[in-house]
């Protein structure tokens, strides 16, 4: 099983969610986050003064999937989150030891 963490542009969340549910991803967790990568934030101008905004708003998705499904999920994430502009984000893939559905006690792929 894999635990996929993706940091994406907030406005790409809906297309990503739709594409993921089309390929059978049955659940994901979304968090509004702030951060920076190579883009290093941006500047805003108020009353003629430039302010550096170091942390830009992004959306973090966390998705637990079976190992077989993971490649397809990464591909969909990569395609749907991409705008081609700086700041599109990153995908991290972690091995996942176990999963359990709290209500029923099911474990492994059954719990995803």
């Amino acid at each position, binding site marked *: 099983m894999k635990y996929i963490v993706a940091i994406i542009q907030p406005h790409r969340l809906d297309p990503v969610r739709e594409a993921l549910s089309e390929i059978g991803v049955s659940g994901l967790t979304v968090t509004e986050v702030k951060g920076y990568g190579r883009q290093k934030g941006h500047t805003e101008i108020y*009353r*003629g*003064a430039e302010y550096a905004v170091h942390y830009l708003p992004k959306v973090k998705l966390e998705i637990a999937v079976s190992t077989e499904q993971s490649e397809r999920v990464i591909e969909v994430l990569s395609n749907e989150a991409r705008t081609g502009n700086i700041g599109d984000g990153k995908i991290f893939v972690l091995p996942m030891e176990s999963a359990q559905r709290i209500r029923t006690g099911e474990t492994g792929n059954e719990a995803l």
Partner: protein
Amino acid sequence: MNAADTAWILTSTALVLLMTLPGLALFYGGLVRSQNILSVLMHCMAIACLASILWLAVGYTLAFSEGSAWLGGLQKAFLAGVGRDTVFEGTTLPESVFFSFQMTFAVITPALMVGAFVERIKFSAVLIISALWLLVVYAPVTHWVWGGGWLAERGVMDFAGGIVVHVTAGASAAAIAVMLGARSGFPKTVQPPHAPWMVMVGASLLWVGWFGFNAGSALGANGDAGMALLVTHMSAATASLVWVVIEWIKFGKPSLVGMVTGTIAGLATITPASGFVGPMGGVFLGFAGGVICYVAVDLVKHRMKIDDSLDVLAVHGVGGALGTLLVPFLVGLPGGAGLGETSVASQFSVQLLGVGSVLVWSIIATIIIVMITKAVVGLRVSDEAELEGLDSSSHGESGYRL
């Protein structure tokens, strides 16, 4: 006593209080970082309450009762001798209404200075500075200009407070900002405004309230009031457009904060002229106010490096002074009140004397007030408290709970 006049000034009184609570509070509140929003609202609220009580106690009598050319007497302290039916001399208004209308000016003027010291000042220092300032700067200057004092005798033209409100507050704000010192990190790492939408809501309430401020200063329901309202609106609209166009050309994007800063610049600039000029005078003052105040913001903050944090001097002080100095040149345009027997040059020299003397008095008196305050309670919160934000460190509250 005249019912129509009284009704309009009662209405204006409410409008001018609306300028401070919540107009100015929101205008300033949106410009600071999110950890300081409540402290700004607190400053405006506390100053409103404190100034009201002081106005009743001695402020009003020092400003508006008979005395010397420099200061009114103490005969109307706590409104002694003013009954329900007392009419204020020279008007058709109950003195209770005239008192209350003027009280809302005494509220907003020290509250304007909040913009100079946000995000770093001790709350106790805010109270002491505001209280002393009301009695030492605002009340005497009001007496000089509107209470029959030495500037009134010379015929200075200040319809609604270009000198009395905006020059006093603007000059003193800069003095406080210099003595208090800049916010930590100024100018490089200061945080941007946390809620530009709130700045717009505040500016809009100020705009509406300003109808009471300027048109109410006619002290009657008459043609002066009507024209004052009209020119006030035109100046605000013009200055807003001018400011946003300058920013659009210079930075590539027309910003909301820029546009509403222009609104306030236009309103401050028309204030001293509002009862004297016609529609084109209003447009001209809006144009001049938009351009000059824009330049002034850059000058004070970015070149002189004074952390007058929310640009009280550049927007209010400069706008008020500019309007006051331009009045004599514009009253002759259609719809204007004219100068009567006086020449433009001699009226201009009186206007210059008014602005200059009030500027000097405001700065000297404020320096002394701030020195006293520093000795009694200190001025700044600790560096840690500043970093944490005044909402939590000074007031034990938080503006946003997410």
